[in-house]
Every structure is written in structure tokens, then in C-alpha cells.
């Protein structure tokens, strides 16, 4: 298990579905939605739970649509 747990929140109305974040993600967390947003772009959604909060997706996002959260896991 990863020691850190992260999460991303994607602003689907700003997203243009360019897929740069999908290839930037080292844990393949992101995928493309089957629905479109108001502009007609297939936006990006989270499809898996392995996010580590590395912020790679947010860095490459040209529209700054991604907000990243990260928390260190407490030792159990």
C-alpha cells in the first residue's frame, strides 16, 4: 500500500479532453468520460483509486482544470 493517498477534482466544464493528463499519470488513474460537457468535449474523469497526489496531471493541464489533494497515511 502506498504511504500517501491523493485525490483529484476535475472541473469538467473547463476540461477540453486533450488527454495530456491521462498519459502524464503514473498510476493510470484518469480516463475519458463517455458524456460530453457543455462545450461538447469528452471530459476527463477519475476511473481508479490509486491516486498518489503526485500532481503530474495538474502540472501538464493547459486549462488548469485539476485540483490535487494529498494526505500522508497514518501508520496503523
Amino acid at each position, binding site marked *: 500500500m502506498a504511504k500517501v493517498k*491523493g485525490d483529484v477534482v476535475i472541473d469538467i466544464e473547463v476540461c477540453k479532453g*486533450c*488527454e*495530456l493528463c491521462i498519459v*502524464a499519470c503514473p498510476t493510470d488513474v484518469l480516463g475519458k468520460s463517455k458524456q460530453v460537457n457543455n462545450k461538447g468535449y469528452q471530459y476527463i474523469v477519475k476511473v481508479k483509486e490509486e491516486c498518489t497526489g503526485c500532481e*503530474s496531471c495538474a*502540472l501538464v493541464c*493547459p486549462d488548469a482544470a*485539476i485540483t490535487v*489533494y494529498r494526505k500522508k497515511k497514518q501508520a496503523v
Partner: protein
Amino acid sequence: MEEKVMEAVNAEENICVPENLIYQRPETLLDVPMHYCPGCAHGTVHKLIAEVIDELDIQGKTIGVAPVGCSVFAYQYLGVDFSEAAHGRASAVATGIKRVMPDKYVFSYQGDGDLAAIGTAETIHTCNRGENLLIIFINNGIYGMTGGQMAPTTLPNMKSTTSPYGRDVQTMGNPLVMTDLIKQLPSVYYITRQAVNTAGNVRKAKKAIKKGFQYQDLNKGTSFVEIVANCPSNWKMTPLQSNKFLEDQMFPYYPLGDIKVPEKEVK
């Protein structure tokens, strides 16, 4: 939407709380949807400039100069004072602004059709005078806004709407490498070439832009940051294909890295 994602992600523990926030849209980047094509590097560079301005806390002291080109609407997206310049003359306008208000941070944001074609003279003379400003140069090797015509920086044999059989270097010349032209001028303090195609490169580009603003504070002279960028629409590619083209074709001709660094920093 936010609530749904949060519920789906973690029913037992919610980590989307302000104390866990590590990355969000910078404040200086206004909450306006950008007109750029999907995957365009302009948005990323706007974001980096906004982040640097936020980090240095100079939002009230920064003046940008927008060019003619795709980034002509940069003033709509960045929450700092902006001036629009005639085609190619952004560095000349920035010179005037900086000389009248030397305590402000002034940067010009130009594309390759602007800086390397019609504005070559202004750029070279601004650098030769060593004006104390930051020039950000987005080099995507094509005229984006007008529909993909050949630019001076277009690669040999690269197709565009005005070179449909590829750029013929016999008749159209070789690509103009602006950084090589200006690196011989002693008044230029810092020249670097970066890209924003991967997360690592984005971090490096941000450092370069930050240095440009910091050198301006120290009154060092011209800083020139070239960003080798993609243009998915006019290269007729998807964003991912355009990044591949960037790595395969553009980087060999425009290698990334620092071209002129202050002497103290030379390792």
C-alpha cells in the same frame, strides 16, 4: 459534481479538504475559460506565469505586454495589468513601459510569428540594449492564429498551408534560431529554452520563468525564455501526437536547456 466525486472516491475518509490541498488553479489566472485549442501549450505557460506571479506576490506590480497571435487575448486570462502591442513590437512597448516605471515587473509574451518574423529587429535591439525585462517566447514553428502558415521557425520539410510540399531550405531558408542570434549579445543576462510537454519539463520551465522575474528585480538585464511548444490544430495532429512530434522532430533542432546563464551559476 465535487460531492459526487468525493463520495465515490472515499466513503470512509474524505481527503478533499483544504488542509490537504497541494495544487490548485493559481489566483492570478482568472476564472475564464481559455479560447486555446485542446492541448495547446499556451494555457500551460499562462498558468506558469500566474503561479510565479502568485509565488513572488507581485500581482499589483506586474505589467504584461501581449502580442498579436494566438495569445492576443492573454490580458483576459491573467489578472495583471496588460498592454497590447502592434504586431512584433511587444518588446519595444515593454521597453517603454519599463523605462517609465522601472520599479514594475514587465514581461512580454510573444509567439514565433511575432517575435521571430515581423519583430526580429525589435527583439534583437531590445536584447542589445539590455533592457531590464523578461521576454517569453513561445516557439511552435507555425503561425497559429492565421491558419497554419509557414513561420521562420518552421522545421525543414515541415508542411504548412504555405509550404504544402514541406519547407524547402533552398528557396525558403533554414529555420531561424532566435536564441543563437541573441546569445552573442553581451547585454542579455539569461537565455534558456524549455518545454511544457511533460510534468518534469513544466517544473523546469516554471523555474526558468521565476528566474526571469527575479533577475528583473535585481536589475540584471534582459532575460529570454524560449518555450518550444506544440500546435495540435495547425500541425493537424491530436494533442498526444503533437507532443510526440515535439520530442521527435522539434527537440533535435531546438535542444532544451540553458543557453546563457549568469557566470556565478555556471557549474
